[in-house]
């Protein structure tokens, strides 16, 4: 036997033991009795920067004024990857504030964020004051590990000047009307290339993802037993057939060429802001960009058109989420701050006003100041509409949406000849990728 083998084996075994020893372990979380005074330092990590980070600081300052025994340390510009790695390394922040509901499934299932039910029950927090859709995307498998921190509602923006020029009175309300108006609004160059596009239907353009368009047909992502529903829910077929027909009317190549010359979504060169696209799917946050970057643009806002007129009024809803790390050093103070940020009406109204996002509590939603802006009110109405929906949390995050997005981009490019076989294959692939999360 090679004399070096025992040494190598010893090194491997030692390293193996180290690997096992350095992996995270679960920890029991006990909460304080009702009425116990809360004090100490609490660390909040959030993803906001610049103006938006200032807004968070301002509300945190209000919190500290009312809770002099709690000192809050705020770290801005922290994305989900950093939070995940910090929690995994046993050094997570007391509170993490994320922009993505996609992490809820993983963070709840793994226990990376603690179950808040015990705090909610102890402090008798009424969850019914929170919008139903936001309640659904902040829990997973019956475990509430997050609270909603403002929300986004998606609707339709349309260019009033281009509508008037094309002789269209008001925003389309059905998908058929949308296609009809899009064609009327489209202007071609003498060589047949596109000069102005009524509605740019490509799935990978700006906010046109499948999840944002699903409410137009009421499509479901998952079945009750958590399997993919894209192949069995006929609503998806309705949506993608409608979309493909519009893509084919433009010509896929012409659309991709036109799209290639457009500016970045979050720049002043946004195609809707520049009048290159007449109708766009977007959320309430676009209002702030328009006010800042396109002051001369005459636009209107409305709910997204639907296949069935009875579903009109709703849209896609998502939002920021906030939770307590399993290795939080001061979970009681963390909960106190989360409770303030997500259920104190005055704090929620202030945050909504500063960040220009939709408030999530019943009283804040009805706040007259926030509703005084007619455009913003349209998005509040979309947010509260019973036909609004979100994409369900999954323990493998956005994997199911990404997998379907691949099918959709292939389909719109004409690479999928048999739609039923393609959807069945997408179902299979989604079910496979979803097992990654456990």
């Amino acid at each position: 036997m090679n004399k070096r083998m025992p040494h190598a084996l010893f090194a491997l075994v030692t390293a193996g033991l180290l690997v096992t020893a350095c992996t995270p372990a679960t920890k029991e979380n006990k909460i304080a009795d009702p009425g116990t005074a809360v004090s100490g330092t609490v660390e909040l990590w959030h993803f906001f920067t610049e103006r938006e980070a200032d807004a968070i600081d301002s509300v945190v300052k209000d919190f500290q004024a009312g809770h002099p025994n709690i000192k809050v340390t705020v770290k801005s510009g922290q994305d989900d990857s950093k939070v995940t790695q910090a929690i995994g390394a046993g050094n997570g922040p007391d509170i993490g504030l994320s922009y993505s509901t996609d992490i809820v499934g993983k963070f709840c299932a793994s226990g990376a964020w603690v179950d808040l039910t015990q705090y909610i029950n102890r402090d008798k927090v009424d969850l019914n004051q929170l919008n139903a859709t936001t309640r659904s995307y902040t829990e997973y498998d019956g475990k509430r590990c997050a609270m909603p921190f403002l929300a986004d509602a998606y609707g339709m923006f349309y260019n009033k000047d281009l509508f008037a020029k094309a002789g269209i009175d008001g925003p389309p309300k059905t998908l058929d009307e949308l296609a009809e108006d899009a064609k009327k609004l489209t202007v071609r160059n003498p060589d047949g290339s596109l000069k102005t596009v009524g509605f740019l239907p490509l799935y990978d353009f700006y906010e046109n993802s499948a999840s944002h368009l699903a409410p137009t047909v009421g499509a479901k992502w998952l079945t009750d037993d958590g399997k993919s529903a894209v192949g069995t829910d006929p609503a998806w077929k309705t949506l993608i057939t409608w979309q493909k027909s519009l893509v084919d009317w433009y010509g896929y190549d012409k659309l991709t060429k036109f799209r290639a010359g457009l500016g970045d979504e979050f720049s002043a060169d946004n195609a809707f802001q520049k009048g290159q696209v007449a109708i766009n799917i977007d959320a309430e946050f676009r209002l702030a960009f328009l006010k800042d970057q396109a002051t001369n643009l005459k636009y209107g806002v409305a709910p997204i058109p639907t296949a069935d007129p009875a579903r009109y009024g709703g849209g896609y809803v998502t939002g920021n989420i906030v939770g307590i790390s399993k290795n939080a050093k001061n979970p009681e103070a963390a909960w106190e701050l989360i409770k303030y940020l997500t259920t104190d009406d005055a704090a929620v109204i202030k945050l909504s006003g500063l960040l220009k996002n939709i408030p999530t509590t019943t009283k804040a939603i009805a706040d007259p100041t926030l509703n005084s802006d007619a455009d913003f009110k349209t998005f509040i109405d979309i947010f509260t509409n019973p036909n609004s929906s979100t994409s369900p949390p999954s323990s493998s995050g956005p994997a199911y949406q990404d997998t379907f997005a691949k099918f959709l981009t292939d389909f719109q490019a004409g690479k999928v000849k048999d739609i039923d076989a393609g959807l069945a294959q997408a179902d299979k692939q989604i079910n496979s990728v979803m097992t990654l999360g456990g």
Partner: protein
Amino acid sequence: MTAKPLGVRVRQNATTLSFLAPALIGIAVFFLYPLVSAVYFSFTKFDLLSVPKWVGLDNYKRMADDPFLLQSVRNTLWMVVVFVPVRIVAAIGLSMLLTQLKRGAGFFRTIFYLPALVPPVAATIAFVYLLKPGTGPVNHFLEKIGIDGPLWFNSPAWAKPSLVLLGLWAIGDLMIIFLAGVLGVPESLYEAAELDGANAWHRFWSITVPTIRPVILFAAVTGVIYTLQYFDQAAVAGSIASGQATVGGGIASNFGYPEGSTFTYPLWLYTVGFGYHALGYANALAMALFVVALGITVILLRRAKAFSGEES
């Protein structure tokens, strides 16, 4: 010869070990431990947040039926097959040209080397904007001379060639190595060949290439490894060209744009690990990449030895 006393030998070994200790600790902590961790985690279901669960070969079996993996492997292989040889040929060509210059060689060396100093992310952003159809100056210029420019990073057919173009622009690091190799070829060999009537091509093929073969081998091996790990430029180019560079949420949604043509293997590995929190599968993908890189390197080294007549 008499054996040294035990005490002396122990002292000598201890001294040797103490000198080696910093390097050994570094290797153990930064190489051995991560490597063993990666192997171990590749057999587990692990999300970085909870205790890993042993799943045997499940992660490796999953690879057989992974549509994103297939797409990313196709793109990465394309890059290896096209990008590596093109980069080597271009670097040799450029270094040969520089050796021919009678005046200003230093100036041109500096000019050609400078792009290699630009951070890849910044260079990619600049390239995407320069080549942007409609607003970019390159297509504007092509239009002036009557050419309808391609869609570059916005076309599935042109996106990878555009990345190759970007790589060629930043070829300075490789060019410098080849330049050193070319300048090291003894002048007397060229003079003798010239006397024998060899033309420029014969001199290049029969003298320059065999002499700089070790440099070519080095460039091929490091080029293949670099291309198998191709991440930054593909990620940035896809995101910027899609018009969603500043979108915070979603990792994979704009990776690979357009139509998955820039979706390389490391992008899929990253998405699986940090987008889907499936660190077990991500480690299996990393192990597969390691084995492939090692395999290609061994093959290249053996073929090079066989080619030069040395024993393999």
